[in-house]
């Protein structure tokens, strides 16, 4: 065989078949992976969009089986916003404080390493177990004379879920602030609290916001911990020590409903919830990209 023949001869058949086969599998698997995503998005838009009327944001759910009234789920939106806000109110300052500790004070010490380890465990706890914890701590206790399902219990569970996310992303954000900025501040005579607040946190703010938004998006979609902490309600949210509705629990409840209007509502609610979560996620990306 000449050199030219040696160089231009095609590969043996079995090797070529292997390559084509693997490429085909790659295409197939990629398609399979994308299929559920596309299906979910498609169905939600197809089934949820038609009912996306203004009333959804202003009305209470119609009584089951009553098709004369245009129902909505304004109370569920209320509940989700309320509980996520309460959870953020607790977990964000707490989380940032812990991250400041880890990044500025504890660093690689024993306490800091233990705390990081504990946080990684906390983030891996199934959300239903967190719900069980919140149930035992809050629902079973009497608070201000009230014992039972409440928004307080729900937001407690959500706060525990949000905490590791906030701490992790804040610590990463703080690490990005150059070390010599801290030194320059100290060299001017600022104490550590002043340096942290005026220089470090300020510089890290966009990245911290990103992490917070991600945590909020995650908390908004949680269902399992809310099922037996906040339960659900068909009326407006009036106080935090009462069963409270939420978008996610509503979708769950309506999914097994015998009434088609309710399952239709659930599609629309899914659309709204998914929209909420996606916008929050996109917002968080935008903030760090702008920098």
């Amino acid at each position, binding site marked *: 065989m000449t050199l030219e023949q040696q160089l231009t001869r095609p590969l043996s058949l079995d090797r070529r078949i292997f390559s084509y086969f693997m490429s085909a599998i790659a295409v197939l698997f990629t398609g399979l992976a994308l299929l559920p995503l596309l299906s979910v998005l498609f169905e939600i838009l197809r089934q949820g969009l038609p009912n996306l009327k203004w009333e959804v944001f202003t009305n209470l759910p119609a009584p089951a089986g009553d098709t004369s009234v245009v129902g909505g789920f304004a109370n569920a939106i209320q509940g989700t916003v309320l509980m996520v806000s309460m959870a953020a109110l607790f977990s964000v300052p707490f989380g940032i404080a812990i991250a400041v500790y880890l990044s500025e004070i504890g660093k690689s010490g024993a306490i800091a390493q233990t705390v990081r380890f504990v946080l990684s465990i906390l983030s891996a706890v199934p959300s239903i177990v967190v719900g069980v914890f919140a149930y035992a701590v809050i629902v079973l206790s009497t608070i201000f004379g009230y014992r039972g399902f409440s928004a307080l219990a729900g937001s407690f569970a959500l706060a525990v879920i949000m905490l590791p996310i906030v701490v992790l992303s804040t610590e990463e954000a703080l690490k990005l602030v*150059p*070390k*010599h*900025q*801290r*030194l*320059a*501040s*100290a*060299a*001017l*005579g*600022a*104490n550590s609290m*002043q340096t942290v607040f*005026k*220089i470090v946190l*300020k*510089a890290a703010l966009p990245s911290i916001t990103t992490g917070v938004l991600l945590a909020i998006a995650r908390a908004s979609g949680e269902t399992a911990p809310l099922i037996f902490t906040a339960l659900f309600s068909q009326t407006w949210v009036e106080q935090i020590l009462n069963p409270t509705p939420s978008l996610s629990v509503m979708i769950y409840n309506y999914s097994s409903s015998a009434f088609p209007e309710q399952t239709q509502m659930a599609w629309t609610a899914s659309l709204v919830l998914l929209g909420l979560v996606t916008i929050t996620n996109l917002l968080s990306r935008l903030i760090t990209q702008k920098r």
Partner: protein
Amino acid sequence: MLHSISQSELALSAQNVDVFYGDRKALSSISMDIYLGQVTAIIGPSGCGKSTFIKALNRIGELESEMRVQGQLEFFGQNIYSPRVNLNRLRRQIGMVFQKPNPFPMSIYDNVAYGVRVFSRVSRSLLDEMVEKALADAALWDEVKDNLKKSALSLSGGQQQRLCIARALAVKPRVLLMDEPCSALDPIATMKIEELINSLRQEFTIVIVTHNMQQAARISDRTAFFSTDESRIGQLVELDDTQKIFSSATNSRTRDYVEGRFG
């Protein structure tokens, strides 16, 4: 450029100072005096501990890493490492300018005002005055006076470094430490800063670390030559009037270094 050494007050004094990073000794038996109102330059090859020394003076070194200091370091007669020392006060009295300009991501005005605000509540008009004076002292006022609200990061490298100097001057330190302030700058910016140091010598005591011997010869009253041997532990080889160091140094190692025979 020459000032005779009068019996001026001792701004900083080191007696037998050893500096350690953890277990590793970085500087050994440093004894030197820095006089009030003078510019003292510290020269020497890289890695000989020049930066380490000045970072021990304002106790910034211990923030960066495990720095331990043995021996006596005094600031106007007060022991810098006394347990009663308030670190924040010390650092306010001993200012520092770093190698790479590091303005805060704020406006020019806020950068200069930062140190003042950290320590006291000053009326807006007084603060304006202090900012203007600091920027003027740093030879930056004319260039930025119409744009004080602009971000400090929009300035050129040389301007940023002068801003950092202004920022340090605003809190009115008694001593200004400069750690190779021109090494990240172009020759023109460097020249401006040298002029600036010259104009400051009336009001401030300056210690400048530099690897640029010509610079040390141009601007300093006294020069200290640091070096290491095979042990890699820094030592003070010679400290004298600048003119003497550069023309007729006593120690042969100093002569070798300033004549460029080793670097």
